[in-house]
């Protein structure tokens, strides 16, 4: 039904993009492709644009903003566009020259202003654009491979050139957010040629990576459509992790059936796109030799002894619900990378709380989350209400509000001027944040369970909240109470409980650990870790799955070391959609 993964599909264009929902294996497939092309004698640059990049985990060497040579692979170089780092470099380039010319508090204010989401976005995009258009970079490599960020972020990054080209053309006052970038004309040309390179089929190929699971496939389809609209029409679909084992094992059969059911819709969703496949593998994709085996389609490695054959039991979801039993209100947030099951976990926790007789409001800020899919049957009881924070709608609402507030003060022209300023990318961050603050305020009276967006976005959101609070303190306008109380509330262990959701694999655990560090820096200590979708917690005897299960223990132990309140959930044989499936899971888990 699908074509085997072959290099010729990838070796025609200089720019190769991997995109897809978090956790589908973008980094592994991009890295493996980079190694394979380099092994063919090509000069390859592998670029990560993910704020939570894990190239370092895959290759075991540090990655920076400057290209680094991969010692084991001739001709392979790596670079990491970490938006935060790019932004701080950029900030320094603007502020640095004035450190000795202006008083310190003045310089501090400048720095603070350049710490917003806008600056991060611009700085990252600049790096990105210059790689795509810098002659010396293009000339030094046969291929530049981008291991892109989780989808929402990727889309933003890729939509910027289109959006901003328009913005710059229409702008008569100099675009607000682009203000700090002098020489707009020059930038405009840069952004335009970036857009051109992206939509040139001779130059760019886009690999939509997906797993054989429904939500990842929908996500890939949505991305395919959106990017096609922007002009990236040279696309392939790569189904990663196809399980083709036949055995009489209950778990293996359920695993196979679930995949098959999910894949049923591919034919109709991706009519004109070539579909490639890579097998389900038992070994972790760390190190160059594992990457080489992976692309050859090897499912097992000879060294596959697995780790210790451990059967230590760890608490499940019941423990987490139990911790909340004595409370009547609060904020519960599930956090983690896309694809680890944050939505399911948030839904399960909400349900558990409802079963305990609590009043609960469940919400999601993740545009990629299909909450309605997980909760097909709404209104389990009048104890539960559900909402979604849709960034697009929030921005509309925010703009309308600002314009209404100011309309009395402005004439036609003034209003046009204001509207133009509201077109800036900053606006979205602010609008979403206000909506988030409003929902959290409900936690005075009930439980609010929030399913957050993927890592990079979540961090930006929290980051925005701290600079946002500073901004609020300085502002002279009317500050909504919800906003004023937000960060102190998020930092209060009694009021806010964060569950970091991860999978029993190398990259997710390492990422979760970095995420926990980031949260700690923001003054938030996660209350629990949830290790989700564990094969080790099932009774599988399947040859492939049980090897995989053995490999999991190392990472379950590691998680427990990171946070003593670690709970482990088995891979569920049932399809996790609808309240019924959640109820069954709840009964099995919590009873």
């Amino acid at each position, binding site marked *: 039904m699908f074509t085997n993964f072959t290099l010729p599909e990838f070796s025609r264009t200089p720019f190769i993009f991997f995109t897809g929902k978090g956790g589908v294996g973008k980094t592994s497939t991009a890295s493996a492709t980079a190694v394979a092309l380099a092994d063919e004698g090509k000069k390859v640059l592998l670029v990560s644009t993910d704020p939570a990049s894990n190239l370092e985990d895959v290759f075991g060497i540090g990655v920076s903003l400057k290209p680094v040579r991969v010692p084991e692979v001739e001709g392979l170089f790596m670079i990491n566009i970490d938006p935060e780092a790019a932004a701080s470099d950029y900030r320094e380039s603007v502020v640095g020259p004035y450190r000795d010319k*202006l008083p310190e508090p003045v310089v501090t204010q400048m720095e603070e202003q350049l710490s917003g989401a806008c600056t991060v976005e611009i700085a990252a995009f600049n790096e990105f654009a210059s790689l795509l258009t810098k002659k010396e970079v293009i000339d030094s490599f046969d291929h530049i491979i981008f291991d892109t960020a989780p989808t929402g972020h990727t889309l933003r990054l890729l939509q910027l050139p289109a959006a901003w080209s328009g913005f710059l053309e229409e702008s008569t006052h100099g675009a*607000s957010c682009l203000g700090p970038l002098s020489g707009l004309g020059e930038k405009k040309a840069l952004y335009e040629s970036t857009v051109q390179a992206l939509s040139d089929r001779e130059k760019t190929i886009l690999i939509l990576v997906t797993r054989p699971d429904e939500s990842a496939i929908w996500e890939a389809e949505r991305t395919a459509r959106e990017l096609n609209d922007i002009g990236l029409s040279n696309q392939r679909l790569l189904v990663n992790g196809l399980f083709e084992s036949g055995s009489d094992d209950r778990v293996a059969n359920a695993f196979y059936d679930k995949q098959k059911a999910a894949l049923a819709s591919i034919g109709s969703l991706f009519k004109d796109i070539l579909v490639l496949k890579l097998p389900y593998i038992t070994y972790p994709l760390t190190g160059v030799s594992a990457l080489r085996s992976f692309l050859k389609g090897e499912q097992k490695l000879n060294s596959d002894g697995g780790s210790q054959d451990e059967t230590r039991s760890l608490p499940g979801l019941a423990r987490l619900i139990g911790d909340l039993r004595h409370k009547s209100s609060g904020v519960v947030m599930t956090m983690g990378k896309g694809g680890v099951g944050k939505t399911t976990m948030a839904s399960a926790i909400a349900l558990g709380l409802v079963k305990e007789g609590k009043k609960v409001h469940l919400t999601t800020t993740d545009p990629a989350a299909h909450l309605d899919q997980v909760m097909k049957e709404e209104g389990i009881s009048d104890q539960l209400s559900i909402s979604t924070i849709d960034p697009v709608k929030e921005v509309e609402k925010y703009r309308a509000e600002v314009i209404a507030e100011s309309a009395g003060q402005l004439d036609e022209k003034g209003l046009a001027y204001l509207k133009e300023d*509201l077109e800036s990318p900053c606006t979205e961050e602010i609008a979403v944040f206000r909506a988030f603050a409003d929902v959290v305020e409900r936690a005075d009276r009930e439980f609010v369970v929030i399913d957050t967006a993927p890592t990079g976005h979540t961090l930006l959101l929290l980051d925005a909240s701290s600079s946002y609070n500073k901004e609020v303190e300085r502002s002279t*306008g009317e500050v909504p109470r919800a*906003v004023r109380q937000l960060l102190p509330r998020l930092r209060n262990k009694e009021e806010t409980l964060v569950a970091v959701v991860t999978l029993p694999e190398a990259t997710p655990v390492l990422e979760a650990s970095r995420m926990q560090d980031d949260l700690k820096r923001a003054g938030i200590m996660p209350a629990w870790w949830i290790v989700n979708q564990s094969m080790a917690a099932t009774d599988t005897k399947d040859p492939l799955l049980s090897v995989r299960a053995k490999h999991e223990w190392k990472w379950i132990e590691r998680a427990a070391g990171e946070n003593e309140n670690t709970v482990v959930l088995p891979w569920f044989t049932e399809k996790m959609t609808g309240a019924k499936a959640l109820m069954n899971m709840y009964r099995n888990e919590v009873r």
Partner: protein
Amino acid sequence: MTVIRVYDPAMCCETGVCGPVVDPELTRVANALFLLEQKSIDVKRYNLGNEPQAFVDETLIQKLLEEKGVDALPAVIVNGTVVKTGEYPTNKELAEWTGVREDELQPEKKEKDDLTLF
């Protein structure tokens, strides 16, 4: 010909509407200055976040910042004299400095939509 130079504190945008809360004061000032520009008054605004060089080049502003730090901002210079620090000028002040009538700095009241059919 009046020359007005406004030195804003660092704001994400020129009009400051990117902030978490829209300050109506900023909107009023942006609009009033915009209207003055329409009347060919020489108006320029500098934002500390975007154009720090302008703050360095103007010795009057340099001196203000040395003395009061960022609290001196916003600062307004009219025809080479510092006339306002720490807050934005009122429409009345703008009118006095430029000779433009104060009511001309207000947005025109929009005509009611003519929907009186009866």
